[in-house]
């Protein structure tokens, strides 16, 4: 990777230009209605302190989420961050359930299924709030035109293998390779009914390779887990040799710790997973929520997410970590939250038909 940060950033953006994103489509209704960018003021901090805590529903893997929470707490003593981590699809269901009962527990929310933000926006659940960093340092396609949310993180759903159990030359290079009978009983895979990452990835793979791919994969006696954060951990345990899908950042974290796992960016293209963050209109701690939202998009937090969390960031000043393949060099599948939103039920039903669970 190039040492010059700007160069890296340009390459990222080029990569993204090659993979048109659906986020701009979301704002067709209202153009440039976003409120002006908000600075973190002493008044906001004081008001947040009075509230004392911010509750964050997120689907990012727990150690990463808690690390970010601790960084926030040490920057703003007196404001605690309570992390509620679950699968994006589970969180989506929980928020729906809570709001239907007039329970407004969540202050601000992150989901690895960008389609959820289409629904929340349509239902009027989100508050307009644009942190200064978002206005200054984020590409337009990663900002909601109405200022309701922005892309807080991105990751990829990759193939992976255990270097203890598989030699590099024998490792799969593509989705098609996973259908080889030699991998029967050796594959672990996460679930689109739980994980937003896998929901998004399943849509992209089914669109590009057809559902026959999943039908054939289901004959491979796969081990089914829930979260997209789990397959990398199953590789590290040595429980399965190969993962059919799972989060790239989980693999980075394990590699950083010296665990014997390796990433494969499939030849057909790698599903790109966008994870926006937004403040709820009925947040119980509105000031703390806004302070936290600003922190989330700050260079400090975004750099931490990349360095410690292995995530990808769209903040213009963030430097990619040495040794990781830059996004621009990876062949990506197009992401399309609007289509995922329309097809989510169908995707879950078909998946269950093939994989039985």
């Amino acid at each position, binding site marked *: 990777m190039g040492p010059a940060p700007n160069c890296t950033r340009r390459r990222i953006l080029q990569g993204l230009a090659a993979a048109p994103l659906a986020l701009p489509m979301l704002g067709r209704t209202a153009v440039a209605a976003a409120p002006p960018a908000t600075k973190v003021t002493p008044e906001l901090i004081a008001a947040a302190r009075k509230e004392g805590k911010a509750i964050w529903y997120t689907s990012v893997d727990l150690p990463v989420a808690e690390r970010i929470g601790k960084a926030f707490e040490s920057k703003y003593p007196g404001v605690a961050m309570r992390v*509620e981590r679950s699968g994006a*699809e589970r969180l989506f269901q929980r928020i729906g359930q*809570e709001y239907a009962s007039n329970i407004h527990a969540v202050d601000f929310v992150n989901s690895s299924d960008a389609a959820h933000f289409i629904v929340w926006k349509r239902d009027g659940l989100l508050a307009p709030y644009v942190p200064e960093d978002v206005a200054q340092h984020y590409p337009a396609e990663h900002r909601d035109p109405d200022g309701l949310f922005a892309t807080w993180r991105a990751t990829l759903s990759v193939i992976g293998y255990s270097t203890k159990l598989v030699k590099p030359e024998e490792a799969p290079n593509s989705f098609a390779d996973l259908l080889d009978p030699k991998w029967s009983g050796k594959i672990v895979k996460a679930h689109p009914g739980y994980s937003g990452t896998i929901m998004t990835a399943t849509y992209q793979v089914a669109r590009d390779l057809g559902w026959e791919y999943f039908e054939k994969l289901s004959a491979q006696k796969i081990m089914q887990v829930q979260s997209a954060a789990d397959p990398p951990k199953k590789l590290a*345990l040595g429980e399965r040799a190969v993962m059919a899908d799972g989060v790239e950042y989980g693999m980075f974290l394990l590699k950083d710790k010296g665990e014997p796992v390796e990433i494969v960016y499939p030849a057909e293209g790698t599903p790109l997973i966008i994870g926006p963050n937004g403040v709820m209109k009925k947040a119980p701690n509105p000031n703390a929520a806004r302070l936290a939202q600003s922190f989330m998009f700050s260079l400090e937090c975004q750099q931490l997410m990349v360095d410690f969390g292995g995530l990808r960031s769209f903040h213009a000043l963030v430097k990619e970590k040495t040794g990781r393949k830059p996004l621009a060099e990876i062949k990506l599948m197009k992401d399309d939250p609007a289509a995922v939103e329309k097809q989510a039920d169908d995707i879950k039903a078909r998946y269950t038909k093939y994989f039985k669970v």
Partner: protein
Amino acid sequence: MPASAGMTSEPIVTVEALPAAAERASRSRFDASGAVMALFAAALCLLVVLPIAWLVVFAFTDRARNVTLANFVTLFTDPAFVEPLLTTLIIATSVSLICCLVAAPMGWIVARTDVPFARTIRMLVMASFVTPPFLGAIAWELLAAPNSGLLNQLYRAASGAGPDTVLFNIYSLPGLIFVISCYTFPYVFVLVANALDRIPGDLEDASTMLGGSAWRTARRVTIPLALPALAAGALVAFLQAMTLFGSPAILALPAGFHTMTTKIWSLFQYPPKPELAAAAALPLLLLTVALLRAQAFVLGRRGYTVIGGKSGAPRLVRLGWLRWPALALALAMLCLPVFLPYGALVNAAFSRIPSQLMTLDTLTLHNVKFVFFELSATKLAMKNTFLLGALAATCGTLLALVIAYLTARAAVTGHRVLGFLATAPIAIPGIVLGVGLFLAYTRGPIVLYGTLWILLLAYLTIELPAAYQQLQSSFRALAPELEEASRILGASRLETLRTITAPLLGPSLVATWCFIFVAVVRELSAAVILFTSETKVLSVLIFDLKESGDLAAISVLGLTMLILTAAVIVAANRLPGFGGGIRLRNN
């Protein structure tokens, strides 16, 4: 129901024999008792009838609440539902059978023989009982996952077999049955051992004196007297296995099959289909009713009163040199639910990678630090769990005591209905009860969702059947003559319950309290529906961690939870005036 019903008939107080004043006093107090009892009956109706009514409404209607049978048509024609139903029945039957085969001999060894360390064995069974089934399932994943499981690794290392050789595969139907049995057999064991404890020696002595051999005595006296407990145990094991959610959710999904509870759970994923879930729960409810009727039919007409005003001490069988093999057998059995899983949890808690055996080099406190200093939900979940546990145990014991008394002594008309209501929730999978409560308490007039109260209601309802059964079987074993004596002397029912019955039942009450407490800490399926971020409990937190595969954090949290639970139970059993203090025997 009780065999001794003839003796409990209401107007046994011979009014002529008592002074008029005492009679009046007795009357007025009896009225108060009636009111209190009516209150309990009403509370029970609210607890049980309300969620079940919602279930029935949902099962027989469509989304717009138009009456329809479509849900049942789907249920019985779609293989996606029929298969889980069959799987569930296979699991429940196998678990019930295995539990009886293991628990009955172990209960006998501990309660009726001079096996060494009998108390220790009981304590270890207790340890497997306080282990939440989902935690046990996770521990067994660590031990017997086909590739990374410690036992499989050990086997491959010892035998030199190749990397694809698998000795145990926990992600399978037999694996699941095995794990559920490990954490269900204590139910049967406790019931059988307690029953055997209570069988007085004089009955067996009588048999021996009349020339009965040891085997004949066992066959004609001991076994028949322990039979109700064993039957109750088999039933409880069956129903527990049928309605369990945590272990199947952890082991069946990776294996690629559903049980009824995990299927129902999947129906609550977005978009939720509560109508189908309610319909899926009703067959389980009907099956339970049928089983309970069968139990009443088999046991109902026999008499099992074993504690009267006078009785002898239980007689222990002398095993001689067989004592040691008996001890070894019991300990070997306890390896499966206790020693091995706990070892795996401790290993995972302190090693870098849970599938590697910890050595001095790989020992780490990172996981402990993460759970206690980084995981922001830990403290809140612990507080909620132990608060709810204590509250539910106290209210539940009280409720079960009164209801068991009313039904065992046929004290009010309609007591059979009360008994049925108190037992009915056992047939409702916690997850479905959770939904029933959710439906009942998310709309006016009372909105409880989002508060700890709705969890308390759920726990009370779920644990009531077992608590009630336990106290009811204690009542059955308690001759009514002592209470009758009190009543003849002018005490009201309530007074009698307080001054005579409750103290005699002291140890049973403490046991019931602990039982509910432990069950609440273990409970996952209703909580998983009813929790919000402010009302999170430990089981839900662990389940969340499991879904993202954080095995080390689970191990730390699980072990902490077990240690705290054990501390609470030890404290409860040291309570002055209960447990240790009162003995039911006149020796």
